[in-house]
């Protein structure tokens, strides 16, 4: 049962250091269950670090991360993944020596691929069916991104963390992805997406958080930000309407 609006993921004063660098300076972020939260900000603001900290790929040096009411700050990445968190990293993280089929089989922790979910994936990304037995390394950039997303949704997840899924993709593929993410949202899955493409962010996002220098500097409804050019300029340095 999805409690729409209740926080599924919450970060409280999270700080992350990578070697000598202090990247996150007390991030407070709430991701409500059942919607899409867009994490925006300039390059280097700390968005990817936030996602990696949630996944325990980098450790929070201070603060707490809670998922579904459970403190996961000290948990490791496999535990967090098995709690129902799917992760699509910025570099896609596909296993290029494995086939598309092997990538998806591995992503199914249960060891079994659900034919119904596969049909959903094949409908959304027909290339996955076409290249089923092809090596993932031979796919195009867009197809690799599709595979990366397909892997994250091959089993039911409570939360999907997706880091810049449209980076480097052609507009036609991005338009297709908007449809896919909307369909995903309709299934009730919660999405936390890092995105630089404002058109996609506005099309999908319910709530938005903006980061700057390792902190959340704005948190609110997507509609509120989308309708306020001045706010966009202040937070992001440009206007969404200029980037349609």
């Amino acid at each position: 049962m999805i409690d729409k609006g209740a926080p599924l993921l919450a970060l409280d004063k999270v700080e992350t250091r990578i070697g000598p660098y202090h990247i996150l300076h007390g991030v407070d972020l709430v991701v409500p269950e059942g919607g899409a939260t867009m994490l925006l900000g300039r390059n280097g603001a700390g968005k990817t670090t936030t996602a990696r900290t949630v996944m325990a790929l980098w450790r929070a040096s201070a603060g707490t991360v809670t998922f579904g009411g459970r403190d996961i700050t000290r948990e490791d990445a496999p535990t967090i993944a098995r709690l129902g968190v799917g992760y699509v990293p910025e570099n896609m993280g596909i296993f290029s020596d494995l086939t598309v089929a092997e990538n998806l089989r591995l992503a199914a922790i249960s060891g079994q691929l659900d034919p119904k979910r596969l049909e959903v994936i094949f409908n959304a990304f027909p290339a996955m069916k076409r290249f089923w037995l092809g090596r993932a390394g031979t796919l195009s950039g867009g197809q690799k991104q599709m595979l990366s997303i397909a892997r994250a949704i091959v089993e039911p997840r409570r939360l999907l963390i997706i880091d810049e899924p449209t980076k480097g993709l052609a507009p036609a593929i991005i338009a297709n992805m908007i449809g896919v993410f909307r369909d995903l949202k309709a299934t009730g899955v919660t999405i936390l997406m890092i995105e630089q493409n404002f058109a996609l962010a506005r099309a999908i996002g319910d709530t938005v958080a903006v980061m700057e220098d390792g902190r959340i500097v704005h948190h609110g409804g997507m509609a509120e930000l989308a309708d306020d050019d001045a706010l966009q300029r202040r937070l992001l340095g440009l206007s969404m309407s200029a980037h349609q």
Partner: protein
Amino acid sequence: MSKPVTAPVTADIPRQPVDWLPVALPLIVAVAAFPLVGNPWTWLTLTIAGLAMGMIIFTVSSGLMLVFGLMDVLNFGHGAFIALGAYVGLAVLIPLTPWVEATSVLLNSAVFALALCAGVIVAGVVGFVFDRLLIQPVYGNHLKQILMTTGGLIIVEQLIRAIWGAETVSFNLPASLRGSWLLGEAAVERYRIVALGIGSAVFLGLLLVLTRTRIGLMIRAGVENREMLEAMGYRTRHLFVGVFVVGAMLAGLGGVMWGLYLQNFTASIGAQINVLIFIVIIIGGLGSTTGCLIGALLVGLTSNYVGFAAPKIALFSNILLMLLILLWRPQGLYRVVDR
């Protein structure tokens, strides 16, 4: 799983051209060596000896291929497991001399199998301890890995000397594995045929596990992107401990076979073959099972042909072989891991 999912849609699959040239290399070397050897029966004897030697080298190298090629652990102590295998095999064969000398093929096979099993088990157990004590604390740091594993090799060698003595040990093969079969005028040693069989079984087994099982999938994926595999819910530490232990067990198996092949050896048996193993892995390409096999066969064949035709450069032949292969393919014959 529904049919449309499993059925290959061959028309649209991007075809990977199969790179057959490295597979043909041992054949090319064998054919090229024929005029140098001259006599066809001598050539056949050398070829079978080279292939058998190559298969034993593959068996001892396959463990390091997994550990160095796949896990990126520079294990200079791999020779310790080979030496352990050889001495544990000896420890089984000596007390069971009546079985070794018996005219019964069954008793000979049983004592041979016991020696192999004991070598594998002891090397596996020591490999587990080795991993916990020496490898895990220095994971990801090559310089420290070299220092720690070289230290581990020295410790194991000294323990072997303390237990079995520093002198050269010698022992006999089980009776039915001694001698040769005659193939025309070529003498084919029985043990070499057995070594060919065991090496082939190890190769097929590794290939099957790595390409047809879920564990194999996890290993191949973990090698390419360990972090992503963890983010998908898999604990790679346990997986890589298992790979290290299997690598040690294969070295133990190869150690028993190498010891029986030499029949005279000291505690340095592992250290002496260490360089050869690294040559094989570098020739084959990091992480490639097939490359490792071809590399081992090339080393075995070259050693035998050169040892016969030009003994003075026999010691140098493997380095020259590696040099030529790397000039042709700087990443080795087949590259699996980018490193």
